[in-house]
């Protein structure tokens, strides 16, 4: 009898502990202290003849509401809500040890990426002089190290690791195999598309080789968004640092601009990508919710701007001027709208009732689709006039791919809001679509140069 009591008490205390653990202001060491209190209170009550369940209920009730308690703890330990950058103090020793190892690995890989950027200098290729080479190969300096970090972190098996290495080798081959005489826009296209294609390789490493798992892919999408935010923040910090550096050295009559161009910017950009990946991984809980917060902020604003744009176009009857590279702009617009939708959806509780924001998102997607279709029509009408340059075909292909994705998303989102479909359908659609981007990007890198060479 006493044995089953003890077991049921342990189970209940365990459940309580897990529940309290979710409060960030209350740390494990405090939970241990509260648990001792709880158990002593239960024991006292049971001595007075209460059953274990009753005693537990009363003891928990006497501790007070968890909200109030959590608030008091937060007031006393305000620092806990500002999570420490690297390792929280009260983490158990073994957790702290793995965090330190991880930080060491990440910084070693970041240093590797920085060195890789300067490696071609040994063969006489310099960043300032050989911009074409560096542009084509930009993705190959940092991404293998990010992939390496995840391969290490996820304990990737040998076969998958080998495949990823082969993928990078193929990428390196096609980035450099075509003769430079074939033209500059090939270089620009490769510089833009190789990172997109290779991002899938990073994704496979991120998913620990289980790329077919939709949930892992969704995590990778979330990771990509957070990484972008971290990267921008690091870049801002780097900008401030270099501005001070330039100012101080100018004061003593030394110009650091050459050093900046040849070393700091390229090496820093490559290393920062690895560091940002590590930060997103290590500090998932810190700005975990940054992407959804930003989407919440900007969804209405984008919806207003796009609606205003469409309205103005219809009202004034002005056509879209395709002469300049407007198409790239519209591609980016669709990417942003897709991001706004995706990060909002990825953070949305599927069981929450439909609200105004859902309608707003649908409005945003629909006006973006309309604006893009108008742009596409304008291009189609004048395509002969401009000719099919590789740049235009690539941008056009991306536009169609994004349009299909966004159209599908709009339909599925409407079906979710009207209660016909689960939100998971939309996530599946997005995760299944990921290889399409990489496939198209790879196509542009591999097939476009020879194809347009002979047109």
């Amino acid at each position: 009898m006493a044995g089953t009591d003890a077991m049921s008490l342990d189970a209940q205390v365990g459940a309580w502990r897990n529940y309290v653990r979710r409060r960030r202001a209350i740390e494990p060491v405090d939970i241990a202290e509260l648990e001792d209190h709880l158990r002593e209170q239960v024991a006292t009550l049971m001595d007075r003849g209460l059953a274990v369940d009753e005693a537990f209920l009363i003891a928990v009730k006497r501790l007070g509401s968890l909200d109030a308690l959590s608030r008091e703890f937060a007031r006393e330990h305000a620092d806990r809500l500002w999570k420490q950058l690297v390792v929280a103090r009260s983490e158990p020793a073994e957790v702290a040890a793995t965090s330190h190892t991880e930080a060491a690995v990440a910084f070693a890989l970041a240093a590797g990426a920085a060195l890789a950027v300067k490696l071609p200098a040994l063969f006489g290729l310099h960043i300032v002089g050989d911009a074409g080479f560096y542009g084509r190969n930009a993705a190959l300096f940092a991404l293998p190290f990010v992939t390496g970090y995840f391969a290490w972190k996820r304990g990737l098996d040998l076969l998958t690791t080998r495949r990823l290495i082969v993928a990078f080798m193929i990428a390196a081959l096609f980035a450099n195999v075509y003769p430079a005489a074939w033209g500059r826009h090939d270089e620009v296209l490769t510089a833009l598309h190789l990172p997109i294609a290779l991002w899938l390789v990073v994704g496979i490493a991120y998913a620990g080789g289980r790329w077919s798992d939709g949930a892992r892919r969704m995590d990778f999408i979330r990771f990509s968004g957070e990484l972008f935010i971290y990267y921008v923040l690091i870049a801002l910090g780097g900008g401030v640092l270099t501005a001070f550096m330039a100012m101080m050295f100018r004061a003593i009559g030394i110009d650091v601009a050459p050093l900046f161009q040849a070393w700091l910017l390229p090496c820093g950009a490559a290393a920062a990508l690895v560091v940002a990946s590590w930060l997103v991984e290590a500090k998932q809980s810190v700005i975990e919710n940054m992407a959804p917060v930003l989407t919440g902020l900007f969804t209405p604003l984008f919806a207003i701007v796009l609606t205003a744009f469409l309205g103005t176009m219809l009202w004034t009857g002005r056509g879209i001027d395709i002469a300049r590279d407007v198409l790239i702009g519209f591609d980016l617009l669709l990417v942003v709208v897709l991001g706004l939708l995706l990060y909002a959806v990825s953070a949305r509780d599927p069981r929450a009732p439909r609200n105004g924001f859902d309608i707003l998102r649908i409005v945003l997607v629909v006006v973006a689709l309309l604006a893009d279709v108008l742009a596409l029509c304008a291009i189609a009408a004048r395509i002969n006039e401009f000719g099919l340059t590789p740049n235009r075909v690539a941008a056009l292909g991306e536009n169609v791919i994004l349009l299909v994705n966004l159209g599908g998303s709009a339909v599925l989102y409407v079906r979710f809001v009207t209660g016909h479909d689960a939100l998971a359908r939309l996530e599946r659609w997005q995760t299944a679509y990921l290889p399409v981007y990489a496939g198209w990007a790879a196509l542009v890198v591999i097939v476009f140069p020879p194809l347009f060479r002979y047109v």
Partner: protein
Amino acid sequence: MEIGKDLMAASSTPIVLAILAEGDSYGYAILQRVRQVSGGRIEWTDGMLYPVLHRLERLGFVKARWEVADTGRRRKYYRITTTGRTQLAEERRQWQAVDATLRGVWHALSRVAVVRGCAVGLGA
């Protein structure tokens, strides 16, 4: 009896320090002692004691240590420090001043009540 929030916050420091001045103790036992000394007139929500203890620790009035209690569980004991004793003496002076003032006021008030009562009695 429910004691107001501000009064609770103000009085918790001297009460906890005074109990710890009797000897080292831990959360649950401190609460039992509060109940006992107040004759059940003061009921703290149990959990709220712990942030108070942590505040006293941060201010250097008490020192905490983990020990294995006779129940076999790890338990956090608190001990009052020299700074804590000084603080307790200071708080004691202040509370005695407040207490004396309140007594004076209550006394005066009850005298007024008696006089009024007489006046009402004479008037009738």
